[in-house]
């Protein structure tokens, strides 16, 4: 049955625009894929062009030598006003010693009001068309295999013995499972398992680390062909605040390394590496290591339930095709080591473990009563809390513009403390981050960059206006009573 929605977007062909962009790139040694959507473009193009891809968040973790004498394409989906592109250009030229001559900025489309232009001849779209294009792209990305946010390591698995339903029934036993996106279209079925951080064991209490009560593991299930094996993209996430000096001085780095089977000096080497931002690099590696600990612990328990089924870890190259990701050597060392050490689930192993562990997150006391609206999803309530701390858009002369001075953002722990409902927060954040209304990034919390945490911010570009409006809406009291609604409905439609 066609609906009012069916007429839209006839002329928007994001795939064609991406193909046009990528097929016309000049010769290059390296492509920097801008988060969030620029990094996805190579995987959305059917041409499967080979490239060496550096995710933009990894750039500060590299050293100058990685970029020396290289022809570099900076790839993004769009330019709105150019702030992100300018920022990466500045990072590369000021801190990585890259010359302008080495750089080529390529985007698929440009907002018509942007004064900043790329190097390629990208079509310029007015606001409304820009939004439509962007939303189409966002939907394509959400339908893909990889999460929208690309700054977490992805672990790939495959099983020929388990159906999706069977796998979900296993997962259900460990924690709270919810769909990870409101979008039902797409190749992959996405679900998130929200768990108590008890899963991390002793690592949770390491000095210098303040680990939150909740962690999560996200799963994207898909099959490469009908009746083919079930594949999973697994993204483990643990939330923590890191105090770098204390972490290193207390030996916590060695303990964490030992837990994962890494060299004892691994984290110290990260900190003393010649990367442009060693502190940011250290927080990144520590926080993603906690995710790896969680995944390790989880898989160990999961295997006890599998019976004769087999779960095999896949190398990322098998999934990435012609796209070769470039990471700093220390990251590669971490990833490969963790991946190879993951407890593979194979038939017949019956581990002597208590499988009655239930890692459902504990509620944080009496849950805050959630506001209700008939139409706006409950999850959007978080926007009110976030925007109370940081105004996403500001009025400039005659229009709203994204607020570039967003301040510190909101920590995950603040949301947990406010709502006291970890499952609600987990599901809502999945939804809001996926839809672009919120974004997350690792941030230094103090001037000395000694304390780091992952923070949430309102979305940028036109999302800034939208989240501002949604947040304002939650604060509004409506003045139509249920009695009036009942009376009007009776008048209009009779008894039903």
């Amino acid at each position, binding site marked *: 049955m066609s609906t009012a*929605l069916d007429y*839209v977007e006839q002329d*928007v062909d994001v795939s064609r625009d991406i193909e046009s962009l990528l097929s016309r790139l000049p010769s290059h040694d390296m492509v920097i894929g801008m988060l969030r959507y620029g990094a996805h473009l190579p995987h959305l193009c059917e041409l499967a062009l080979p490239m060496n891809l550096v995710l933009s968040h990894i750039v500060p973790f590299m050293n100058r030598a990685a970029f020396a004498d290289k022809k570099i394409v900076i790839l993004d989906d769009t330019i709105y006003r150019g702030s992100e592109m300018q920022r990466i250009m500045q990072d590369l030229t000021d801190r990585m010693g890259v010359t302008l001559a080495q750089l080529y900025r390529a985007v698929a489309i440009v907002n018509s009001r942007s004064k900043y232009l790329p190097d390629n001849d990208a079509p310029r779209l007015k606001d409304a068309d820009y939004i439509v294009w962007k939303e189409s792209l966002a939907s394509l990305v959400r339908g893909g295999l990889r999460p929208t946010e690309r700054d977490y390591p992805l672990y790939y698995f495959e099983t020929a013995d388990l159906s999706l339903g069977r796998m979900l029934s296993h997962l259900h036993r460990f924690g709270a499972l919810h769909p990870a996106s409101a979008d039902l279209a797409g190749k992959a079925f996405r679900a998130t398992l929200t768990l108590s951080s008890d899963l991390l064991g002793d690592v949770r209490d390491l000095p210098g680390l303040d680990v939150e009560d909740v962690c999560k593991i996200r799963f994207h299930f898909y099959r490469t062909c009908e009746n083919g094996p079930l594949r999973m993209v697994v993204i483990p996430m643990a939330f923590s605040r890191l105090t770098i000096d204390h972490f290193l001085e207390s030996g916590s780095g060695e303990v964490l390394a030992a837990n994962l089977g890494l060299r004892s000096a691994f984290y110290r080497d990260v900190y003393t590496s010649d990367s442009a931002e060693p502190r940011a690099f250290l927080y990144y590696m520590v926080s993603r290591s906690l995710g790896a600990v969680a995944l390790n612990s989880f898989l160990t328990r999961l295997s006890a339930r599998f019976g004769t089924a087999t779960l095999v870890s896949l190398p990322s190259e098998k999934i990435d095709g012609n796209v070769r990701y470039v990471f700093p050597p220390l990251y590669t060392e971490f990833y490969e080591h963790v991946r190879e050490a993951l407890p593979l689930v194979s038939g017949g192993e019956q581990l002597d473990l208590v499988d009655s562990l239930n890692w459902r997150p504990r509620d944080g006391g009496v849950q805050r009563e959630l506001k209700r609206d008939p139409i706006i999803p409950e999850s959007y309530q978080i926007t009110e809390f976030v925007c109370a701390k940081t105004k996403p858009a500001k009025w400039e002369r005659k229009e709203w513009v994204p607020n570039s001075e967003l301040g510190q953002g909101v920590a995950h722990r603040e949301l947990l403390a406010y709502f006291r409902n970890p499952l609600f927060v987990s599901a809502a954040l999945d939804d809001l981050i996926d839809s672009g209304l919120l974004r997350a990034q690792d941030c230094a919390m103090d001037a000395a960059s000694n304390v780091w945490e992952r923070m949430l911010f309102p979305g940028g570009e036109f999302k800034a206006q939208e989240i501002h409006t949604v947040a304002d809406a939650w604060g509004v009291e409506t003045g139509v009573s249920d009695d009036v609604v009942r009376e009007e409905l009776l008048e209009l439609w009779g008894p039903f």
Partner: protein
Amino acid sequence: MNSGARSREYALGREIRSAFFLGKAGWTAQFRGGHATISQYRLYKLLANLLWDWHWLSKSYSNAYDFHGAGDLVWVPHLFGGLCMGQPTLYEAGAADFKLQDGLYASLSQLGQCKMYSLYGFKTMRAADGKFSLSFIDPGYQLERRARVEDQERHYWTKLLDVYCQLTVDELNSMATCRTPGATLLSVRAQLVRWHKNTTKALNAFATGRAAEIDVGLYFRSARECADQFHEKLRIWDHIGEPRQHVADLAAKTELAGRVPMLLDLPQYRFAGDRVEALRRHEPVIAALQSVFSQIEALWLKKGVDSEALEERLGLLSGRDLVEKRLCDASVWMALALGTRTRELARLCQDLIDACVNAVASESGVTIPRQSDFYNAVASSEYPLPRDHFKPGF
């Protein structure tokens, strides 16, 4: 179809846009009226008219009126004529008691309970003495700028409001309901669909012995109203020339001169005028059926059957040769009525109504389906306004 159309943020954009359109209309009409409130009926009619021109202006003059759609606002043929309702795409059953009618439509009061609509000006709705009054506030320029509505759209929505705010309620109703043959056909069909539903509900209650358990009085009243409205819509259609001309005269003083009101129909409604006339020929049939049906009500109210009227109506129906004679046999009816054999009488009445409705539908070339099927079709394949021409998105 591009899956982006169904994404959450797309739906959110439409929601914000719809809230703007509704709030702007409510505030403008209230302000122009010089009162602190506006009647619910007036706003329904006003928006219904705006929608019609919005769709057709952009279809017919795409260079001049390069619009996106009307968000979640849709034109609906209703018991009370053409109305504007909401078809919220962001709806996720967030509130347990928020039900879309026929799974499709939200009323103004329901939209008024939604925060986005409140943000854009919809403040209160009150009921007093059977009348509903709404109160809006001006959302303000800054908020309007966040509404995903382009400048030129804001401009023309306001221009349309300028024209239609000057109409009387009756004129608004006429234009919202019967401005074109297509609109008239749907409006008239809606009455028959609803009338058939209400008669069926009431008769089923009697036939199954459940009349004491439900409020059958409501179905009797609703059916009576539907029958009255069926005749009323045909009267409006007969005199549509005057309100059309008034709108044209008002628009002549604006940049919409010569274009508003838009009086076009989609190609699928090119025979709508003929079908309306075909239904008109069966107007006496519907009146007769309603009269027969009301005898059941009289029995239920213990007022006794009006034998003479019953016989006359049955005779009329019999004379039409639409249905089997046995269904119109007055002696059978009298026997059942006098013997207060209500169940059997209800079944006979149901058979008569069903047979007549089918015959009318067949002869007129229209369908008179179940209410939910009717509105599902109206919301999709039978929607009378063009939608495939709008700029993508929203």
